[in-house]
């Protein structure tokens, strides 16, 4: 046993630096230290898209835009918020596959060197994005599930065919701005709703997200791309991206509990 453990340590010690050096590749170190982008701070939803399915509770039977299957429709047609309230399941539309669509604010902080924490004021949810090894013991399924996080760095040297052509008469082009993306994969979910009006996702759903930043003048925007795979209730994976704008502080942070109706 001891030999195996030593071998594992030796393997890790050998492989991680190699991976870091490959092509001047990603730097080694704790996720917080090597973060290529800074996601921390307060972010507010910009509800410029899908307003009538997000800003208000859509009418029963309004499923526009969701690639649902017949089983999903059967469940959604039986949506009854009073029943959800009675069973203490008011947070069904605040699970990880739906939470980014809920108008509200995010507060993103580092809980420790390898865990990024996302809190929401709408529904008072907390997501923990875990870099590195996942816990050996799986907790019970939850609204926010288990999230494995990974940085995706920009290449230090672009392939030739993507390198911009210099114009001979002009000054050389500035080097590309470094950056990256956060990829998050979430499983171990408790079944919930993609939309407030009962469009379901199952406990087998897998959520893949990408977090990207865009600078525009004094504004910093966060785009969260979400992909929900759920063969139980979706004909195809559901792809949608939500924009957020960075705020200077938490002055407008307004925690509100989950609601099954609003």
């Amino acid at each position, binding site marked *: 046993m001891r030999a195996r453990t030593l071998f594992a340590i030796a393997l890790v010690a050998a492989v991680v630096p190699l991976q870091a050096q490959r092509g001047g590749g990603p730097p080694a170190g704790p996720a917080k230290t090597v973060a290529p982008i800074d996601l921390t701070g307060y972010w507010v939803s910009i509800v*410029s898209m899908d307003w009538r399915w997000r*800003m208000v509770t859509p*009418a029963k039977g309004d499923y*526009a*835009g969701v690639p649902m299957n017949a089983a999903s429709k059967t469940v959604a047609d039986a949506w009854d918020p009073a029943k959800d309230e009675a069973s203490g399941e008011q947070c069904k539309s605040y699970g990880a596959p739906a939470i980014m669509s809920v108008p509200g604010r995010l507060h993103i902080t580092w809980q420790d060197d390898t865990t990024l924490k996302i809190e929401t004021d709408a529904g008072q949810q907390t997501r923990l994005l875990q870099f590195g090894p996942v816990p050996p013991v799986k907790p019970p399924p939850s609204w926010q599930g288990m999230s494995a996080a990974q940085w995706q760095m920009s290449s230090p040297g*672009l392939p030739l065919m993507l390198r911009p*052509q210099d114009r001979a008469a002009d000054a050389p082009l500035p080097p590309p701005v470094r950056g990256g993306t956060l990829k998050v994969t979430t499983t171990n979910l408790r079944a919930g709703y993609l939309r407030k009006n009962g469009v379901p996702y199952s406990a087998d759903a897998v959520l893949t997200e990408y977090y*990207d930043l865009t600078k525009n003048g004094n504004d910093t925007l966060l785009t969260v*791309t979400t992909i929900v795979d759920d063969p139980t209730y979706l004909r195809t994976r559901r792809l949608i991206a939500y924009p957020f704008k960075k705020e200077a502080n938490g002055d407008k942070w307004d925690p509100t509990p989950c609601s099954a109706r609003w």
Partner: protein
Amino acid sequence: MIRSWLQAFRPALLVLFVLAIAAPAMAQTDLSGWWARQSQNDNGYANEPVDLIGIPVSADGRAKALSYNIASLSATERQCQMYPPWYITYGPFPLQIIAEQDPITQKLVAYRIVGWGDRGEQMVWMDGRPHPSPNAPHTHGGFSTGTWEGTSLKVVTTHFKMGDMKRHRAFSSDRATMTWTLTRHDDIITVTGILEDPVYLAEPFVLTEIFQSSSATNGFPLTPCEPIEELPMLHENPALVPHYLPGKNPFMNEMTQKKGIPLEAVLGGPETIYPEYRKKLKDTYKAPEKCVDSCGGPPAPRGGGPGPAGRGAAPPAGRGAPPPAAGRGAPSPQ
């Protein structure tokens, strides 16, 4: 021998596997190819003629939208009006992106975004050339330059003509500019568009769209447009410009009546796109009891005829609506 070795060092291999998936990865950035649209639903499911929901229009932008009469598209000079570059984020069109390489150095001179239907072609110049003078002519596709920022391509587009911000409902002026990023994530591209318009917007209009890699070809190519006589009244009286006077738009209350959305929200504006507005609506909004029109849902069973009223029905056709093409590359109303 191999099996026993694998068994002996299984814990070590597991640790290695976990590290391999947890360690940072280098992202791929090539954007060339065919991409089918996948994401938001506002344009495809917009049925009511007055619908500025979610758009941070200015007072002038709202007035412009409410004066619009779709018959104006039949005027000879407007029949060949094309959609502006903003329609990449809002329209139903897929994307075809072609990398234009220098034949000697093989470096990237530009990305060409092929025209589609009635959206013009765009060249995204990567070679550092400057934007033209503010007084240079504006075109349907505008003038675009691109730079790599992190894992994204950031594009700035200027010099495009006035056009639809939302199909037949909201409009951007010829002073508008667009900043947009394209970020590839495995087999999808996420586009974040930021439209700024000192005339018709009170603050930047931010929209996102997702495109999925597709093997389908261009089912709705950019075609020459030739004006014809569409409405006799416009030819009998060439000075006539179809429009609605202030306060006279007959469709102003349609969305409120059909969907229960307050008129204030239907008319857009920056105050309506942030979470605070949701709290304001809480005590006044009353959803219709049941969705009856363009409700989506699973497709009707084959051979079973149409589903229940409105369910699964595609959004109505119209200029800029999805063409009747099939396959993965066909524009989706989703």
